[in-house]
């Protein structure tokens, strides 16, 4: 029996080397791509002849790219909940909103009764709480993670469809609280429908980045997205990731292997919410404020569409899905509509048809490519397998 021993060790060693190779490879590729885009927008676009730079202004404006990155951050968070752990979450917008209001509370004049300054770019005589963007990022992420656990603890015992309903409710309740939070027993929590604006500029190495410093903010957002990619891949290959995959496949069997179900699910919720918080704070600095009516149910659905379109469970697929849908939503569709209207002399309101388009895409994907554009290898197999009765004996 010596032979299999040797064979075994060799194999696992090779696969380990492969894994570490892949991990360093993505960092290099990601950095090169991110840097290329940055150089292009910071320096090259201005040098281009007018017709070309106008093309980029119209079809790929820098602000769209930054906004897409916020979507990527949130979609990666949702991917952990939906793609990794297999828990359907229809209320992710709640975390985005909470993160946004963290920026509103801690980076503006909103609490004008006090004056607390720490590492902020705001002038010291300004009232309100002014903390550094980086600290608020952390605060927003942690508060969201806490809310994730808070909402998860009583609800995660529910089975899939019921869990989805509860998250749906949560995603409606939180924005409504902010929308109506002008006067909660005399306390102004959120400034109601007026929102909180402006928020402080971002400080980076002594620079002060206002709402229009898109190039530098791009760098910050891209780093945050990279952080989420790193967290996703890292957790995925570790013990927690294996626990999530096991839960996704067979909850009962996972528990029999010693996987703590509640703890693992809560962790998925917390990590997902964490990224929602980061996305929320980033988005608030991007649009220079928080506005309650922005946090609608459709955000949750768009995020879900991004995860499904790209390929549930695959980080790269989700990034592609998020970039594609975010682009179509904010620029692609309006620009396309404008072009068509100019050529045909019509006045169709193309952006208003975005949900028709997304609905169409989702139906098309479910019919012809259920695993998404860049599928996770494991999921591809699940979705394309005909009912395998041998593996489901006693599945009650």
């Amino acid at each position: 029996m010596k032979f299999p021993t040797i064979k075994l060790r060799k194999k696992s060693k090779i696969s380990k080397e492969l894994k570490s190779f892949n991990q360093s490879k993505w960092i290099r590729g990601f950095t090169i791509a991110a840097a290329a885009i940055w150089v292009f927008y910071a320096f090259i676009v201005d040098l281009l002849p007018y017709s070309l730079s106008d093309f980029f202004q119209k079809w790929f404006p820098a602000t769209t790219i930054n906004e897409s990155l916020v979507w990527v951050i949130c979609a990666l968070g949702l991917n952990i909940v939906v793609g990794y752990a297999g828990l359907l979450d229809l209320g992710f917008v709640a975390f985005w909103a909470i993160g946004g209001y963290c920026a509103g509370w801690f980076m503006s004049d909103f609490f004008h009764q006090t004056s607390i300054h720490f590492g902020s770019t705001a002038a010291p005589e300004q009232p309100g709480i002014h903390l550094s963007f980086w600290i608020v990022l952390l605060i927003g992420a942690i508060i969201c993670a806490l809310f994730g656990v808070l909402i998860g603890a009583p609800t995660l015992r529910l089975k899939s469809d019921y869990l989805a309903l509860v998250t749906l409710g949560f995603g409606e309740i939180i924005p409504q609280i902010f929308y109506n939070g002008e006067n909660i027993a005399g306390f102004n929590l959120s400034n109601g429908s007026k929102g909180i604006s402006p928020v402080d500029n971002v400080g980076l190495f002594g620079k002060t980045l206002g709402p229009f410093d898109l190039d530098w903010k791009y760098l910050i957002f891209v780093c945050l997205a990279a952080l989420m990619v790193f967290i996703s891949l890292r957790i995925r290959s570790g013990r927690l990731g294996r626990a999530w995959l096991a839960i996704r496949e067979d909850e009962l069997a996972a528990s029999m292997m010693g996987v703590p179900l509640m703890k693992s699910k809560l962790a998925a919720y917390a990590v997902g919410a964490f990224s929602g918080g980061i996305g929320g704070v980033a988005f608030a600095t991007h649009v220079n404020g928080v506005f309650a009516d922005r946090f609608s149910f459709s955000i949750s659905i768009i995020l879900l569409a991004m995860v499904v379109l790209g390929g549930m469970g695959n980080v790269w697929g989700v990034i592609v899905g998020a970039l594609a849908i975010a682009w179509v939503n904010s620029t692609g569709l309006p620009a396309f509509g404008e072009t068509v209207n100019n050529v045909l002399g019509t006045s169709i309101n193309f952006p208003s048809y975005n949900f028709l388009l997304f609905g169409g895409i989702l139906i098309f994907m479910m019919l012809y490519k259920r695993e998404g554009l860049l599928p996770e290898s494991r999921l591809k197999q699940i979705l394309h397998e005909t009912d395998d009765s041998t593996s489901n004996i006693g599945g009650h």
Partner: protein
Amino acid sequence: MLKIENLEVTYGNIKAIKGISLEVNQGEIVTLIGSNGAGKSTTLRTISGILKPKSGSITFNGERIEGVEGHEIVAKGICQSPEGRRIFPKMTVDENLDLGAFLRNDKAEIKRDRQRVLELFPKLQERIDQKAGTMSGGEQQMLAVGRALMGSPKLLLLDEPSMGLAPVLVEMIFETIKKINDQGTTILLVEQNALAALNVADRAYVLESGSIKMSGKARDLISNDEVTKAYLGG
């Protein structure tokens, strides 16, 4: 090692287990036989924390474990190969075994147990990178038992390991169960295939509609008229 006293388990209003008591001693193979719906699987599921008992006690190495969460039971050293195998069909054999050792950190020991499992079931070594769901029923059963062994159990619970297998495979599985026991693992075996179970076990309990009808040494029960009539087709 394991002591169950006056255990009652209900599904809603229906009493599935009506106050049974049984005992498993260190190093034994104890089998729980009985027909469909007698409460065999319910008993195992209650031991492994999936079901909560209505009353009664389960003691494992002097510690009360009834009503404890499933993953904590595994941590205490009780691993189960569940009814219907319930392997992770979309994961490879390798990943399945890996999950069996989910709670363990002792890398060297895990490696040794893995080696032991692959020696017990050489078929699994051949299929190591194959998706578990694509294997035959027998191979999946081997994987289910192997995966439970990866938890390095003090007590191994086997729920119907022979279900749906060809006779030659049944024989092979029971031989392996004996081997696992010889290597020092205590086993509680639930079976419908009473003859095969009694042949390999030290002691046996006969379960009928939620109560223990008979118990004793396995070899005595084989020659017992009542048992022969009811379960051995004699």
